[in-house]
């Protein structure tokens, strides 16, 4: 029999707040984290005008001694040297989540505790390190260049910082990465291989990470805090963001044994792929629909049991319609299920998106509310059949889904339940 999994800790470094209370306030009051950015000063045709910037932190320099972070965190400076800029977000979010979960060092550095992370690495530091190597014809390279920039950098750094002794792994499936990380962390606990998992999603908010998406015509060229407007007729691409979110997952039995506060229950997950295109969602949403069906089956639930769906919808013309069709198919007999994409407020956090929205979903379950679909002025006619609330709603049930989709047609759906149900 599979073991039950609980979420016992959440940590936040996001565009809409750097602690749970701030994030909750932003969600309830549709306070956007999207701000103007000027990464190419003076450029006539600046492709990126806004992003979900991270308050309270400044990691814009490549040089770690210049980074600024909130004074509440006491970080060992030897640990900073090998971090990428988003690593400091990840470290702070994880310290916050571990404190939220009430875990001692001996419980963190234990063979029973593992760490799964997801990020795209640091293109900014990678560019700098490769430039040094290139300029010296291969003779000169920073000794920490690899571990601070490649896509496993969070595992290396956080694994060492917290002296992780259980599983330690990175997950790469683009914008589904940290949903996969949550899902497989759940599996580690369900199977008994681990008792507790730390799951981290993080990304940088800078030109090197985000502007390449403009070349794909995936980023919104719009300005203003409502440039991210999922399901709206005006949508013209996603708005990028970064930061870090950490979830602590534990076997419910272990959490109960130490009288931990349960934030939510992780009840199941499903995945399926589009079999279609390197980057574009399949029009009929078949892959995501099957991911949702698989998740419902894994949690032994029917569509009617679901009280809220946190959509992947990134505010791209094709993607949001694809998800709409997937939702229409799976929830044909339950069309009134409330759906919203909180990316309207946060921006799209790429590899971090799954962890961010899983945590948002847990927060909403815990606080018994459904966040509205912010920035929805004129719903796309193709999305008109969705129930997209324009004001916060009271949660009308116990279960919620969180969807994620990534390049290559990867789709993941997570199922959470209220802890007190």
């Amino acid at each position, binding site marked *: 029999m599979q073991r039950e999994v609980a979420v016992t800790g959440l940590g936040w470094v996001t565009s809409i707040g750097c602690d749970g209370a701030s994030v909750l306030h932003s969600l309830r009051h549709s306070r956007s984290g999207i701000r103007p950015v000027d990464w190419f000063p003076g450029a006539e045709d600046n492709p990126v005008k806004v992003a979900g910037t991270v308050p309270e932190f400044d990691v814009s320099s490549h040089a770690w001694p*210049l980074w600024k972070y909130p004074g509440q965190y006491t970080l*060992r400076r*030897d640990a900073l040297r*090998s971090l990428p800029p988003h690593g400091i977000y990840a470290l702070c979010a994880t310290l916050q989540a571990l404190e939220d979960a009430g875990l001692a060092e001996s419980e963190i550095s234990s063979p029973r505790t593992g760490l799964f992370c997801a990020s795209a690495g640091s293109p900014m530091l990678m560019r700098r390190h490769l430039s040094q190597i290139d300029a010296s014809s291969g003779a*000169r390279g*920073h000794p920490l260049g690899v571990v601070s920039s490649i896509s496993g950098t969070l595992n290396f750094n956080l694994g060492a910082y917290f002296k992780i002794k259980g599983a330690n792994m990175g997950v790469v499936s683009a914008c589904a990465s940290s949903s996969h990380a949550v899902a497989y962390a759940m599996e580690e606990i369900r199977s008994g291989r681990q008792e507790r998992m730390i799951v981290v999603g993080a990304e940088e908010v800078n030109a090197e990470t985000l502007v390449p998406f403009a070349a794909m015509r995936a980023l919104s060229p719009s300005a203003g805090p409502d440039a991210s407007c999922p399901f709206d007729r005006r949508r013209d691409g996603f708005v990028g963001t970064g930061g870090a979110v950490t979830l602590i997952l534990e076997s419910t039995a272990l959490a109960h044994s130490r009288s931990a506060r349960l934030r939510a229950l992780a009840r199941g997950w499903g995945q399926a792929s589009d079999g279609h295109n390197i980057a574009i969602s399949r029009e009929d949403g078949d892959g995501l629909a099957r991911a949702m069906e698989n998740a419902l089956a894994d949690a032994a639930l029917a569509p009617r049991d679901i009280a809220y769906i946190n959509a992947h919808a990134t505010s791209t013309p094709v993607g949001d319609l694809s998800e709409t069709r997937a939702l229409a198919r799976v929830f044909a007999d339950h069309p009134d299920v409330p759906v919203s994409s909180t990316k309207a407020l946060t921006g799209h956090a790429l590899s971090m998106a799954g962890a961010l929205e899983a945590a948002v979903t847990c927060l909403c379950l815990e606080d018994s509310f459904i966040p509205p679909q912010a920035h929805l002025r004129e719903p796309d006619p193709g999305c008109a059949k969705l129930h997209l609330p324009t004001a916060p709603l009271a949660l009308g049930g116990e279960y919620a889904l969180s969807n994620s989709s990534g390049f290559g047609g990867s789709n993941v759906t997570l199922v959470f339940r209220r802890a007190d149900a």
Partner: protein
Amino acid sequence: MIPPSEAAEKLPGYPEEVLQAYADYYRERRSHDLDRVVFGLIAFLLPEPPERPLHELPDSTDLRADLQIDSITIAEVVFIIEDLFDLKISNDTLMSLQTTGDLKNHLRKELAG
């Protein structure tokens, strides 16, 4: 070696005393100032500031065993030193540097040449 202004650009956010020691060495070429640069850099990369300046420790102080400096940190310090002083320190030499005295003596010899 590069001028102090370039050194400051290469070491953004590093302690003022290290940059001052570098400027002093650039001007006077005194071994004592060289030690302040090198051991100031090492001290800045340690988990906690040392109780007393590292360049005042006995030359027999073992970099790894006594100061708990791992090989990546030594490689990082050497990377910075190579940049500042326009030196090339081979892997074999790197492995042979066991004590603070080894490091001092090697750099003095290299820079004297």
